[in-house]
């Protein structure tokens, strides 16, 4: 009798928390949509490729070589994933440290995006490691404190844990564990301080990695200021990503969103911040160019590509964002933010893939398997984000918790 009651209770819990109030059969039937089938196809083929990579090794699955040991998985999955996840610490510090409370409604989705960004960047990194079974070594057995990777590895690990802790209030609200949720909220300021410190360190030191290869990177992209460039551009990427993600989320998950939130107003504020940081970043890049005294290289083909990146993806969107924010053109802001996100991706790929080994032939071109693996990881990230947002209070707080932030 008692076990029947427990079974019924657990079935009710599953129905409510996991199956969105549907019976398991109805839930599975609701998943049969063309979009979900496309996602399933990508995941099945992608996971097969990842399995192939681990069975047969990097040489069989990638176009990486001794000359070009870092490819798409580092350039896109790791560098872009981490940069685009910077919205987590940017928004959390704005709200919890600088007191810009009106941006609180976009903190949770930003933290979730950041957490997933880091987790899937780490999975991409694991794919890229020649000997992935050594993954725990720098954390447990041999710290390697003299390696530049020591700082990156530890900061990324610790920050991923901090992001997980920052997101736990949503999980505890979802599970109804009020005491645990209240306890974690008390840690918010401490976690945010840790997030700022760790992010500042590793966002910059990801750029610092490239200081070890001054002769491999084209002079227009190599600069002793690369760590500073990476840090500032990560802030622009984070702010822009929050603009793009919040706009898409509030449209795709309208039933889960808080309709009392004036998202347009928040978007305009974020656009102003992004415009100012982009403007600063443009002059920082200009300073890098002046420091290297590489003005003559601007007249080459590489120079045209450099100008395309720095003017087309930094200066112009900065001016457009400022103008659109001033005129309150929210749709233009969202498109421009997507443009900035693309610009940061172009920058990271330039530094790590395109302008890296620029004078080495043959040039590295990612293999189909590398590209499919990257698409799979991005699809997994979006799928998990969707699963979480559909269940947990991410876009809107539960009414019973709204008073006690």
């Amino acid at each position, binding site marked *: 009798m008692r076990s029947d009651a427990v079974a019924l209770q657990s079935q009710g819990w599953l129905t409510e928390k996991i199956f969105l109030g549907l019976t398991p059969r109805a839930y599975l039937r609701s998943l049969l949509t063309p979009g979900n089938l496309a996602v399933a196809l990508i995941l099945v083929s992608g996971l097969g490729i990842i399995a192939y990579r681990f069975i047969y090794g990097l040489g069989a699955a990638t176009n990486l070589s001794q000359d070009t040991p870092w490819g798409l998985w580092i350039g896109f999955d790791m560098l872009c994933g981490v940069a685009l996840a910077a919205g987590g610490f940017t928004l959390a510090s704005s709200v919890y440290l600088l007191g810009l*409370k*009106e941006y609180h409604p976009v903190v949770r989705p930003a933290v979730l995006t950041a957490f997933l960004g880091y987790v899937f960047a780490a999975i991409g990194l694991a794919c890229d490691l020649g000997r992935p079974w050594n993954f725990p070594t720098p954390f447990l057995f041999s710290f390697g404190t003299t390696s530049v990777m020591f700082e990156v590895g530890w900061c990324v690990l610790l920050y991923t844990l901090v992001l997980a802790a920052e997101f736990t209030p949503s999980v505890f609200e979802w599970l109804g564990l009020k005491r645990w949720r209240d306890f974690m909220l008390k840690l918010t300021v401490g976690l945010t301080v840790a997030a700022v410190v760790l992010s500042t360190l590793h966002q910059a030191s990801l750029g610092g990695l490239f200081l070890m290869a001054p002769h491999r990177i084209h002079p227009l992209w190599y600069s002793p200021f690369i760590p500073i460039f990476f840090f500032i551009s990560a802030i622009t990427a984070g702010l822009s990503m929050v603009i793009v993600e919040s706009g898409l989320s509030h449209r795709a998950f309208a039933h889960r969103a808080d309709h009392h939130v*004036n998202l*347009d*107003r928040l978007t*305009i504020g974020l656009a*102003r911040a992004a*415009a*100012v940081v982009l*403007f*600063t970043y443009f*002059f920082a890049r*200009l*300073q890098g160019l*002046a*420091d290297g*005294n590489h003005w003559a290289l601007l007249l080459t083909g590489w120079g045209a590509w450099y100008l395309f990146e720095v003017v087309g993806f930094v200066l112009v969107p900065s001016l457009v*964002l*400022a103008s659109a*924010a*001033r*005129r*309150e053109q929210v749709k233009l802001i969202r498109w421009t933010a997507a443009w900035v996100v693309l610009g940061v991706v172009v920058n990271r790929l330039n530094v790590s893939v395109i302008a890296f080994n620029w004078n080495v032939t043959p040039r590295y071109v990612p293999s189909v398997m590398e590209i499919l693996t990257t698409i799979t990881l991005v699809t997994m990230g979006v799928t998990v984000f969707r699963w979480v947002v559909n269940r947990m209070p991410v876009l809107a707080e539960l009414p019973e918790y709204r008073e006690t932030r």
Partner: protein
Amino acid sequence: MIPHDILTLYTAKAIEYLVAIAFIACFIPFWRYAMSAKAQPAEATVKARVPRRTQWVEWFQVSPEVAYHPGHAWARAERPGLVTVGMDDFAQKLVGPIAEVSLPHVGARVSQGEPAWSVRADGQSVSMLSPIDGVVAAVNPNIVSSPDLVNRDPYGDGWLVRVHAPKAEATLKGLLQPRLARRWIEEATNDLRRLMAPELGLALQDGGVPVDGIAHAIDPSDWRRVARTFLLT
């Protein structure tokens, strides 16, 4: 180091300084440009946002589209950072037929809870409190020639000023929202009942609305005192 290198170094350093100076010179105007709001015609937005419905609470109309200050002024966000302000139906009925409204000038700063404008009725004027902090962006040009607009349409054509308020959203949250405002108006009505003279009470027994100029009806000799009690001035 050969002289040529020194010259190159100096040139590079000079350009770096120039870039830094250019950044400082450009950043300040860019910041001001990015942080400012483009001025828009004051009239257009207001006309587009005239509230379409009001609800009766006792003898007074309450708009569900505005937030209320306890001094019986209302505020409504027209767009981010721009708020329209007026006096509520309770205030206009309390004061009665309005002969003149003295509004602040465009560019004047108003502060929440501080006197911002005054209305003149029956030969005397009474101040009212601003529901919001900010700078006056526009005043209702029709109020000067037709102050009775406030009596006829307090939540629509009778608006008073538009305020540029960068932190409007946070400030508006601190005001009385419609649901709470309805209870607040009920309580204010009960207070009025307690003050009312017998002749006004008779006027209500058939379920009608009290005459305009309730304060005057309560105390003809010193209606300002009654009005100021409710308007918190």
